[in-house]
C-alpha cells in the first residue's frame, strides 16, 4: 500500500519495515490526538475533527500530486501558480455562454494537463533540474494570469460552494472523496505498471533507462498528474472562497511539500508513498487546530509548526541517506 516491496507474507519485514516512516508519523498523529484531548475537551470531538477534515481538503489535494512528482526524484514548484490560475479562471469563466461553469471546469482541467505535460517535456528535453523548470513555469503562469485579472475574477455560481462545504450526514463530501482518491492512487502505484515505474525511476534513473522502463512516459505522467491535482485544488478553492484571485495559490507551493516529506517520502525519490502524505496532511492540520485551541497567539504558531517539522523529520525511522 505504501512503498511497495512485496505483496504477501511476512507482515513486519515486508510491509512495515520499508514504510517505517509512515507508521512513525501515524504514531505521532495518535500522540497528537491524545495531547489535544488533554489540552482542550473540544478538540477531540467529532464536530471539530470533521471541520479539520474539511479544511484539510485543499492541502491534501495538491500534496497528492506533489507526492507523485517527488517520488520520481523531482519536484513541482509550479503548483502554487497553477492553483492561482485555475481558481481565477474557474470563477472568471463561470458564466460563459458555452455551457457555464461545466465548460469552465473542463477547460481549466485541460489547461492543467497541458501545463503538466509542458513541465514534463522541459524536464526531459532540456534535461534541466525539475526544481528550475517548474520554478520558471510557475513564474510564467503567474505572469500569464495577471494578464487575465489583477484581482478577484468573477464569481462562482450559487450552489457551487457546495463543492467546498457540502456535507452528507454531517460528513464533508469532497474531503472524503479526496481521501478515497488517495487510496485509489495508492492502489494504482502498487498494482499498475506505471505506478511501479514511478518508484523505479526515482530509485535509480539510470537503471530505469537501461532496463527499458519508459522513463519519458513516467516523467510526463507525474507532472501531468501533479498539475491536474493542482488544478482540482484551484477549482475547490474557488468554490471555497466564492471567487479566485491571482495570488491565491502562492503559499501552496512550499506548503504542499511539507506533508510529503513529513509523511516519509524522500526528496531524492524512490521511497515513500501517498498514504504517508495523507497522514502528514492531517498531522499538520491537527497541529494547527490544536495550537488554536491551546490559545497560543497566531504569532507563535509558526514557531511551533517549524519546530514540529524539525522534530518529525529528525525522528525519521527509515534508513537515512547521507546528504549535504
Amino acid at each position, binding site marked *: 500500500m505504501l512503498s511497495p516491496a512485496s505483496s504477501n507474507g511476512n507482515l513486519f519485514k515486508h510491509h512495515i519495515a520499508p514504510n517505517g516512516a509512515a507508521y512513525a508519523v501515524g504514531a505521532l498523529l495518535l500522540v497528537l490526538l491524545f495531547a489535544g484531548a488533554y489540552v482542550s475537551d473540544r478538540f477531540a470531538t467529532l464536530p471539530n475533527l470533521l471541520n479539520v477534515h474539511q479544511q484539510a481538503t485543499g492541502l491534501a489535494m495538491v500534496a497528492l500530486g506533489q507526492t507523485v512528482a517527488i517520488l520520481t526524484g523531482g519536484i513541482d514548484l509550479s503548483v502554487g501558480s497553477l492553483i492561482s490560475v485555475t481558481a481565477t479562471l474557474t470563477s472568471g469563466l463561470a458564466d460563459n455562454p458555452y455551457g457555464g461553469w461545466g465548460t469552465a471546469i473542463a477547460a481549466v482541467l485541460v489547461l492543467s494537463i497541458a501545463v503538466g505535460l509542458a513541465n514534463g517535456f522541459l524536464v526531459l528535453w532540456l534535461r*534541466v533540474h525539475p526544481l528550475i523548470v517548474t520554478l*520558471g513555469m510557475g513564474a510564467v503562469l503567474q505572469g500569464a494570469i495577471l494578464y487575465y485579472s489583477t484581482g478577484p475574477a468573477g464569481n462562482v455560481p450559487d450552489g457551487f460552494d457546495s463543492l467546498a462545504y457540502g456535507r452528507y450526514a454531517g460528513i464533508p463530501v469532497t474531503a472524503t472523496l479526496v481521501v478515497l482518491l488517495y487510496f485509489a492512487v495508492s492502489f494504482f502505484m502498487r498494482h499498475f505498471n506505471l505506478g511501479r515505474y514511478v518508484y523505479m525511476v526515482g530509485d535509480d534513473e539510470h537503471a530505469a533507462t537501461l532496463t527499458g522502463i519508459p522513463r519519458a512516459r513516467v516523467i510526463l505522467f507525474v507532472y501531468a498528474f501533479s498539475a491536474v491535482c493542482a488544478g482540482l485544488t484551484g477549482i475547490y478553492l474557488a468554490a471555497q472562497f466564492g471567487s479566485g484571485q491571482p495570488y491565491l495559490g502562492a503559499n501552496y507551493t*512550499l506548503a504542499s511539500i511539507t506533508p510529503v516529506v513529513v509523511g516519509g517520502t524522500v*526528496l531524492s525519490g524512490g521511497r515513500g508513498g501517498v498514504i504517508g502524505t495523507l497522514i502528514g496532511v492531517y498531522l499538520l492540520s491537527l497541529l494547527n487546530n490544536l495550537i488554536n485551541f491551546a490559545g497560543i497567539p497566531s*504569532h*507563535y504558531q509558526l514557531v511551533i*509548526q517549524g519546530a514540529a517539522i524539525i522534530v518529525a523529520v*529528525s525522528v525519521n525511522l527509515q534508513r537515512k541517506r547521507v546528504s549535504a
Partner: protein
Amino acid sequence: MNSVVSKRRPPIARFLSTELLRRYGIFLFLVLLVAVSGVLSPTFLRADNVVNMLVQFAPLGIVVIGQVFVILVGGLDLSVASVMATAAVIATAFDGTNASAPAIFGATFVMCLCAGLLNGLLVTKRQVSPFLATFATAVVLQGIRFAYTQGSPSGNVPPLFHTMGTGTLGGAPVSVLMLAVCAVVFGVLLHLSTFGRRVYMVGGNAESARLVGVSPDLVRIVCYVISALLAGVAGLALSGYVGIVDNWVGRGFELDSIVAAVMGGLALSGGRGSLPGGLAGAAILVIVFNIVLLIGMPVQAQIIVKGVIIIGASACYVTRRLR
C-alpha cells in the same frame, strides 16, 4: 563503463555541454545581455540607472555568495530570506540611534550563527535533506520574528544603516562597496584558499574527501554559517534601504539566489561552479528586471520573462552523465 547509446549529438549541443561553457558561458551571456539592453533602451546605460541597478544588485549579490558555498557542498539554503528579514527586524529593535549599532551587529551575528548552525547540524548530524532543514529554520525564524513584532512591526533603523542602505562613499553606493568587499574576501576564500579546496572536495565526493582527512560535516556546517552570516549582512543593508520595519524584507531572495547560482553554472548536486559565476547569474537577474521595466513591459510580462530566462539559462549547462 555503462554509457549505452553513443549517438552523436549535434555539434551545437556538444559545445553547449562542455565544461568551458559552464565556466565562461555565463559571462558571454552577460555581455550580450548588456549590449542588447543598451540597444533596447537608451536609459539603460545612463549613470543613474546603472547606480540604481547596482544598489538592487548588492543585497542579492551578497546573499548569492553565501548560497554558492552551500550549493557547492551539495546543499541548499532556503532560510536566507528569513534570516534577512530577522536581521532587518533586529535593526529596528533598539533605540534607533547609532549608539545601538554594536548591539545590533552583535545580536545579528548571534542570530545568524545560530541559524547557520541549526541548518548545518540538521543536515549533517540528523541527515535531514537541506531543502527541508533550511525551510524549517526559515519557518522557525519567521515565527520568532512575528512573535516579537506581534504582527505589527514598529521601530526605526539607526542612521548608520540608512547610510549602509542608501548612502554613498566616494561616489559609490555603500551597499555596493560592501558587496565588493564580500566578493573579494569570499572569492579568495573559495577559489584560492585551502578551505575553498576542501569545499570543492566535499561537494564533489564527500567520502573521498573524508578519506584524505577532510571533515565533510565540518565543512558543510561552516558553509551554512557563511550563508547565514552573509544573509544577515544583506538584511542589515536592506533594512537601511527600506528604513522602517518590514517583516518581509528579502522576500523571494531564497529562490532568486538559488536561481542565480544555477544560472551561473552551479550544479545543484554540488562540486561544480564558481563564485564569479553565481554573481554573474545574479547580475543577469537584476539586469533583466531592470530592462523589462525600462522598456515598459507590464508587470505580468516581467514575471513571464523571468520564468523563461531562468529555464533557458539553466538549460545551457546540461552535462552528459559522468558515469
